[in-house]
């Protein structure tokens, strides 16, 4: 194929995906779509294989491919021009019920030539708890509406009976309807633009370019794998749900041009919805693989071919129906992301050529907190605290992690302004800032997470409620690399000021830190809680992992971190061995301390020997 036409068609395909993403955001009115970028749009070939993955939540690129393939299998002979299919069953292909896939065949002159697929996290799915994450559900049946595939649009006509049935099962049906419209519009744009592209270049040429695009990605990825050393790398992730501990174990083996992710030894599935279906784990390992190993390769089927996954049936990474999975995307899938990130980065570190691409884990644990209740305008609303999309970058071989710098699986997320949140919900922020000592120590420091506290303000009902499906409090999940420490864990506190005032504790009207807020601090992480009166909710979110030995960190960088309030003097001395006074390194004491700490490490060895 001539490289000129190929280059032009490739660029156009990228633009088609980008335009479809913009359409999705324009129509969907929700903050989770617009701020969190919790969405995905991709193009697939006629057989359902991934052709061009867009920059959205990357877990979904592969599972939407499976969704296409499932529709092809189940609707064979009944796939017509203008149809749009819906699939959100996690045991068929999806990740969890609230991330609905709408999948559309693209025909040219009556011939099926491609598919487009997209998802948004819909406003509600009718699970036990509002907003999609349903910590109170103990099986898939209580996680809301779930379809292994149905035809939502028939030859261009929306099937009203089906749409009405779906909207009849969810809270805020009007907002869910809008989410549906956004996905229909998005697929229509993708279809229209693909058809114009084929009109211009003929089906034969476009088909050839598409197949070349895939074989090229495969070739490039295999070449990269061949350049990387063979070996076997391990990672272990722990996370806690309601007092129970779960483990994800990963052994990643790379041999020549093949790579295998083996999750044998991971915990048995949970009674809570943090489980991954097989498709969630499959997508979860690709979410870091695409940006870490294929940053300069088109994300498509060609990258998927050399990869194999082993995930034991009935485990937390391959749950058996009817295990609940509504929290998968902020549950075990993140353990899969993190473990894959660690193993891939270890492999990169073992390559002279690619070691600079290695990174410690970014934002190891999301905290999904959905507020619901009556807002200051008197209307019922549901909405996520978008701070979870603020994230924290892991430290990298090339330098420190970016403070509150996002995450790898969702490369272009962002969080809302305080003013936006205060205008939307009946809450007031007490503070929002980087969290001291949250970035994993190392030669390169992990990016910090952040902390904030909110309290009701102008709430007609005196407050609101929230659903929290938080993990990552009992175990740090942002692993370090090359000796770097993990980032700090997350911390969710219900501060019971109402109770304290009743018992005579004096009010602090404008506390500026968690310590200053009066009242008992109850650790919470799972379930539905009220936020009423003068109580507040405090969230400190996890930092990124560190890279390398903190005792080798440049002293001035430590002093700068102390001066900027992101590292305490205690940690500067204890972990970094740097004595800082008034923002300046005290060199003599630092030299002494660093030597002493090294000596202590060596002496520890002597004790072991005895």
């Amino acid at each position, binding site marked *: 194929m001539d490289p000129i036409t190929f280059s032009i068609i490739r660029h156009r395909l990228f633009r088609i995906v980008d335009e479809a993403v913009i359409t999705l955001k324009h129509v969907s009115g929700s903050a989770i779509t617009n701020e969190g970028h919790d969405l995905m749009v991709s193009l697939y070939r006629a057989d359902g294989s991934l052709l061009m993955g867009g920059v959205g939540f990357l877990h979904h690129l592969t599972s939407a491919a499976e969704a296409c393939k499932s529709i092809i299998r189940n609707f064979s002979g009944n796939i017509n021009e203008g149809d749009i299919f819906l699939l959100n069953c996690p045991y068929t292909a999806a990740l969890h019920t609230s991330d609905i896939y709408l999948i559309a065949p693209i025909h040219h002159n009556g011939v099926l030539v491609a598919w487009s697929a997209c998802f948004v996290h819909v406003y509600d799915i009718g699970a036990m708890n509002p907003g999609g994450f349903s910590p109170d559900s103990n099986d898939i049946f209580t996680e809301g509406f779930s379809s292994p595939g149905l035809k939502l649009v028939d030859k261009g006509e929306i099937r009203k009976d089906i749409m009405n049935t779906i909207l009849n099962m969810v809270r805020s049906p009007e907002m869910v309807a809008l989410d549906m419209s956004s996905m229909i519009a998005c697929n229509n744009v993708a279809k229209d633009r693909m058809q114009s592209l084929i009109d211009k270049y003929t089906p034969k040429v476009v088909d050839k370019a598409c197949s070349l695009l895939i074989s090229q990605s495969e070739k490039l990825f295999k070449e990269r794998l061949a350049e990387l050393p063979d070996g076997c790398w391990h990672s272990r992730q722990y996370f806690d749900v309601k007092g129970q501990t779960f483990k994800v174990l990963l052994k990643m083996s790379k041999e020549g041009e093949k790579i295998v992710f083996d999750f044998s030894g991971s915990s048995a599935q949970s009674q809570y919805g943090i489980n991954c279906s097989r498709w969630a784990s499959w997508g979860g390992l690709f979410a870091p693989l695409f940006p870490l190993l294929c940053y300069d390769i088109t994300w498509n089927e060609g990258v998927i071919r050399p990869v194999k996954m082993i995930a034991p049936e009935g485990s937390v990474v391959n749950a058996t129906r009817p295990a609940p999975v509504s929290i998968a995307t902020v549950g075990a899938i993140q353990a899969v992301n993190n473990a894959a990130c660690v193993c891939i980065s270890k492999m990169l570190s073992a390559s002279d050529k690619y070691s600079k691409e290695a990174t410690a884990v970014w934002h190891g644990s999301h905290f999904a907190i959905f507020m619901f209740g009556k807002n200051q305008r008197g209307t019922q609303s549901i909405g996520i605290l978008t701070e979870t999309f603020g994230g924290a970058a892991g430290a990298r071989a090339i330098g420190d992690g970016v403070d509150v710098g996002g995450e790898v699986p969702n*490369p272009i997320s962002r969080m809302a302004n305080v003013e936006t949140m205060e205008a939307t919900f009946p809450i*007031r922020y007490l503070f929002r800032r980087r969290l001291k000592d949250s970035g994993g120590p190392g030669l390169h420091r992990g990016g910090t997470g952040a902390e904030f506290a909110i309290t009701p303000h102008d709430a007609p009902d005196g407050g609101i409620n929230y659903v929290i499906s938080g993990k990552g409090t009992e175990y740090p999940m942002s692993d370090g690399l090359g000796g770097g420490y993990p980032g700090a864990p997350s911390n969710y506190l219900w501060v019971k000021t109402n109770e304290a005032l009743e018992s005579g504790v004096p009010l602090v009207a404008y506390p500026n830190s968690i310590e200053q807020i009066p009242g008992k601090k109850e650790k919470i992480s799972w379930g539905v809680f009220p936020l009423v009166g003068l109580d507040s909710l405090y969230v400190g979110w996890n930092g990124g992992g560190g890279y390398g030995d903190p005792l080798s960190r440049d002293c001035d960088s430590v002093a700068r971190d102390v001066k900027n309030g992101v590292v305490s003097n205690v940690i500067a001395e204890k972990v970094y061995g740097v004595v800082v006074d008034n923002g300046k390194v005290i060199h003599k004491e630092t030299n002494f301390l660093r030597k002493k700490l090294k000596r202590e490490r060596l002496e520890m060895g002597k004790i072991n020997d005895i």
Partner: protein
Amino acid sequence: MESIVKDKYIIATDVGGTCTDTVIIASGEPILVGKSLSTPPNFANGIINSIKDAAKNGSLDINSLFKSCRFFVHGSTVVDNTLLTRDGAKTGLVTTEGFEDTLLITRGAYGRWGGLTEDGIKHPVSTNRADPLVPGDRIKGIIERVDYKGHILRELDLDQAESSIRDLIENHKVNALAVCLLWSFFNPLHEQKVKEIVRSISPETYVSLSSEIAPVPGEYERTSTTVINAYAGRIIENYLQSLSSKLRDHGYDGEILVMQGYGGLLPAIEASNKAVGMLECGPAAGVIGSRYLGSLMGDENIIAADMGGTTFKVGVIQNGELRHAREPMVDRFHYVAPKLDVVSIGAGGGSIISIDPRTNVPVIGPQSAGAFPGPVCYGQGGEEPTLTDVMMLIGYMDPDRFLGGSVPLNIKLAKHIFKAKIADPLGLDVDEAAVGIYRIAAAQITDLIHEITVEQGLDPRDYVLHAFGGSCPLLCSMFGAELQVKKIVVPYTASVNCAFGLVSADVIHEYTHTETFSVPCDINKVNSIFEPMIKKAQNQLKADGFIDKTISMEWSIDLRYARQVHEVTTLIKGVTPLNKDSMNLLIKHFEELYERRYGKGSAYRDAGIEMTMFRLTAKGLVERPSVERLPINSKDYSEAIIDNRKIFVYLRNGLKESPVLDFDKILPGNAFSGPVLIHTPITTIVIQEGQTGHMDDLKNIIIEFD
């Protein structure tokens, strides 16, 4: 409409990175054009040189020119440059206690990926935030709190504020301060008090308040804007002062009007208070110039494309209206200020062509050979083939007549290097490869324009394409045809388009008020929001020297569907102050605009409509001399033919012998059928087979499709 009349000339000078351009207009006289090199850091010298060059072309003497000058209009990249070179003031930031990190954490990853291309976004491990203009230790939280309704919850602690400010000024030695407190756009009282404190401690410290610079919701963007303003504020103040005194030395003591990023002019005294307003004012002037040219030619729908050495920039004018950017950035910093929407890609004449060694696919840019060493064919030591070299290889440039023959081009060297680095690896001969690269460049530009037209619900077939800059006329006949635009205009003033835009701009003051109302609402309440803004605007414009007849006010309101996040600024086309009819008309226009921008079915009407921001655009109309039109001659252009050459013709996907014309020998009315080349003093205009061209009575070259 009668306007203030002072004297004869309007002089406009645009300072760009490399060149300073001048356009001078006067009634009944031809447009004068001048060009000279910019002279940083003393830009005023380059400005005078450029004016002298233009004056010389009209056989005028600069001092007498200034004596009869009515307005001096100015645009400059000085603020953009201050940011790019990190050359601004030592700046401190005062914000609400508890929220000191707002600027530094950039709403999370937003500041890390903002402004990156696809390649950067897909490679997060390689990306960082830009270093902030204010480091953490120069950010001070002060005790105060206002809520979402503008109610003061916690009074400003004056003592604590004073000691924070003293610390910044006395210990940190800052000489500029940005102040951004939560919800200050609703209630600016605390910010104003902070300003008073600074004044009392250190009157010489430059202060920017967010409630004055960017009174809009969203504390991150507001803070970032205020910081940029404080950072560059003193520099622009000094810059305009030194320009003013230089002009005074040459006998001009009138008003200096300064171009803003939204395409309007402000008197220098106001412009110097709002550095952030000058960001990207050059491209804005270009779009304004395009609109003016369109109005002279009767065209209201225009795609204004400008391609120079490093970038391709394009803006859209729809029904004579300009579009504003949604999330503007400068050097990876977000800011919020009214700014015309001009998008760009890194493709220009100097863009380097390379082959991705792994995929064997040719890539254009983003690196540029710059002015030095420049393209291979310049023979200045450039060893990387560029788009300009490709243009020469496909016959579009004359090696002996480039820039009037002042720079002989080395075609042999260009061919040799292009063959070795591009054609051979692709397995193509030189002609095929060069033609292929040209096609890719045209396709990428087509995709960019597609993005701002088709993808926004606009049909390029309704639009006229204006092609500006040194490189655009070489490519426009190809991508113009791909987009199927109505026609293409290569303006006579193509090389000094931004300066031309300056002479066609009006004085514009923008005022905003933020408050949320549900529709239907009390119309009187809405009118009462506009009243004080109008009063303020009238006083301002009168102080600028305008009278009632030359003052025009445009009202607009940002509307959205309740429970959706996208706002649409909607111009009130009915009568103002609003009555029931004009209010209904406004809502109707909003619904139409929303559907057009976001697509059919994108509106959720059941929850109603909300007003979120009230905007007043107050214009002082500058009277412009009428442009002189030239007599039309016969179609016969044979006098202008200077050569015949083989050039690339895209319909044949090959080369064809074609006539070459000298622009200076073409007369208005001459008409020609493609393929044909026209050499101008600064560029080459390519007209493809299947296209016709002619020169109109303003010396523009018009290209039409058969």
